[in-house]
């Protein structure tokens, strides 16, 4: 009887075996502090070398009359470059072009992207396949997109004009007619980036909890009421993220202009980015282009800060 109260004799060696020998602490000299430095500094070094240092260089150049083609002789000219850029009527015109493009393209993309996402979110069957197909334009390189559309919008043998012709409507000079060329750019950009808004809106739409709709159903809420009071408010923050992201990217637009119109006709499709490129690589006025570029960087940085702060607030709530 007394025996049963005693611990079984086998348990003693088992407990001893559980005490594992301490593993060899290799790399123990790497304290957390050293490790974080060792892990972060190479990445930071690359960024400093190819993102920060160039920008500082650009800032320095913006106060000079340096030109990349004549290496001798350059002097400090203070804020002259900035004054020239800010007072130039050409720059004002390009800024207006860029603004029209950004507002037009992003608005169109948002409306279409959200509509498509909304339609897809109401489908049950084949949702994955439909979404995947819709996403194709977004994944293509701007060079590919630009070439697709340059060919399709060609005046003589472009398929768009061919269709218009067979419908009895006249041919349209999509890329060479003033006013229309910028509109064509908006269309092409919309074609490529509507899927982006759609993808993010869809992520928001599928995250709306079902029980909200069920509750609304019980209260006999109309479809419109459900959309206005449940769907839209819940998707809006995510949609705004997408819109801001697109707006920043549209502001920098260069590649489509480069391939489709080359800034023409008569500079009506010249965005700020393209104008900087012309000043820097055709005018060879590197100092002026630098001041121009710095001003663009300031605009982008402010916009990016808004975007990131908003994103941060959203993630914390």
């Amino acid at each position: 009887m007394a025996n049963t109260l005693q611990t079984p004799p086998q348990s003693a060696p088992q407990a001893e075996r559980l005490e594992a020998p301490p593993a060899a602490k290799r790399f123990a000299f790497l304290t957390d502090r050293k490790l974080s430095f060792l892990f972060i500094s190479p990445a930071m070094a690359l960024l400093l070398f190819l993102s920060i240092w160039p920008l500082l260089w650009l800032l320095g150049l913006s106060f000079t009359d340096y030109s990349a083609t004549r290496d001798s002789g350059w002097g400090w000219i203070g804020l002259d470059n900035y004054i020239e850029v800010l007072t130039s009527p050409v720059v004002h015109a390009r800024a207006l072009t860029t603004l029209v493009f950004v507002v037009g393209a992003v608005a169109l993309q948002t409306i279409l992207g959200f509509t498509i996402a909304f339609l897809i979110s109401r489908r049950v069957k084949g949702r994955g396949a439909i979404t995947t197909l819709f996403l194709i334009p977004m994944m293509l390189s701007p060079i590919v997109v630009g070439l697709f559309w340059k060919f399709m919008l060609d005046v003589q043998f472009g398929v768009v004009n061919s269709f218009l012709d067979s419908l009895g409507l006249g041919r349209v000079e999509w890329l060479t007619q003033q006013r229309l060329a910028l509109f064509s750019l908006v269309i092409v950009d919309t074609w490529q980036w509507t899927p982006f808004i759609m993808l993010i809106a869809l992520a928001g739409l599928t995250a709306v909890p079902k029980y909200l709709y069920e509750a609304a159903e019980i209260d006999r809420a109309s479809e419109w009421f459900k959309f206005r009071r449940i769907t839209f408010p819940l998707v809006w923050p995510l949609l705004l993220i997408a819109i801001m992201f697109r707006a920043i990217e549209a502001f920098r637009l260069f590649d489509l202009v480069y391939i489709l119109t080359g800034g023409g006709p008569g500079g009506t499709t010249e965005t700020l980015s393209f104008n900087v490129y012309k000043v820097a690589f055709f005018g060879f006025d590197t100092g002026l282009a630098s001041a121009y570029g710095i001003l663009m960087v300031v605009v982008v940085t402010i916009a990016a800060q808004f975007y990131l702060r908003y994103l941060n607030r959203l993630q914390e709530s």
Partner: protein
Amino acid sequence: MATHIQPEGLADKGIAGETVDPPVRRERKFGSGVEILLLTIFMVVMLFPVIWMLETALKETKDIYAVPAKVFSFSPTLDHFQNVFSSDSPVFKGFVNSVIVAGFSTLIATVLGVPAAWAYSRFTLKAKKDQLFFILSTRFMPPVVVVIPVFLMFRDLSLLDTRLGLVLVYAAFNLPFTIWMMKGFIDEVPAEYEEAAMLDGFSRFEAFWRVTMPLLIPGIAATAVFALIFSWNEFVFSIFLITDPDTRTAPSAIAGLIGGTTIDWGLVAASAMTFAVPVLVFAFLVRKHLVAGVTLGAVRR
């Protein structure tokens, strides 16, 4: 007894015919027909340019310029694709260079980015949030602006017209994305795993390498695929930093095709398709992470 007898016809309908469909149902069905129609229209519009380019790549040259355009009635040929891959093709070298540049830049971005992301995820650092925001905001810089000082810098370092230069630029360009994307994946791995491993006697580094790292492999693969796509598709740096036909990448080689007075659209279309197909395949592989990927790791579901 008579109360038990139901009038004929109501037998299947229950009491007071409750199971008759409410009118809402029918309205919904009609609405969904309109929705399907709208979706189909959108789909056709979105996919038509891609299909048209594919058709152009497969058409004979005389059919390409046919007026009115031939949508269905043409005899397919692979001539243009053969021209893309032939030995005297102006774009084939570009593809090879693109593979090299995209591959190495992705490798560098991943090797530098993953440890940095881990450190940002696990340690409390001074102004961590600001550092991360700062890193991502470098990615928003207008490429045309950044390329001016980089061009001058590379001229001094004689890195212009070299693949190495472009590899470095793309690595720096992909690094913010890699860090943000990987931080998201690492945040999902509980830090307790590493702490448990450290209780067992591992050092912090070993805990990262042996415990967390194996769990991160799928995330690293997805991130690398996105970095690969971004470098592959990048256009502005590639046309400004390399003009030499021997070292230039595919985007500038393809853009070079439309520079002349006559444009061989069949070759352009075939090159563009060849250029686009790998991206589409890769994008399909990482479709689960697409939302995070296209927002540079900033939005996670």
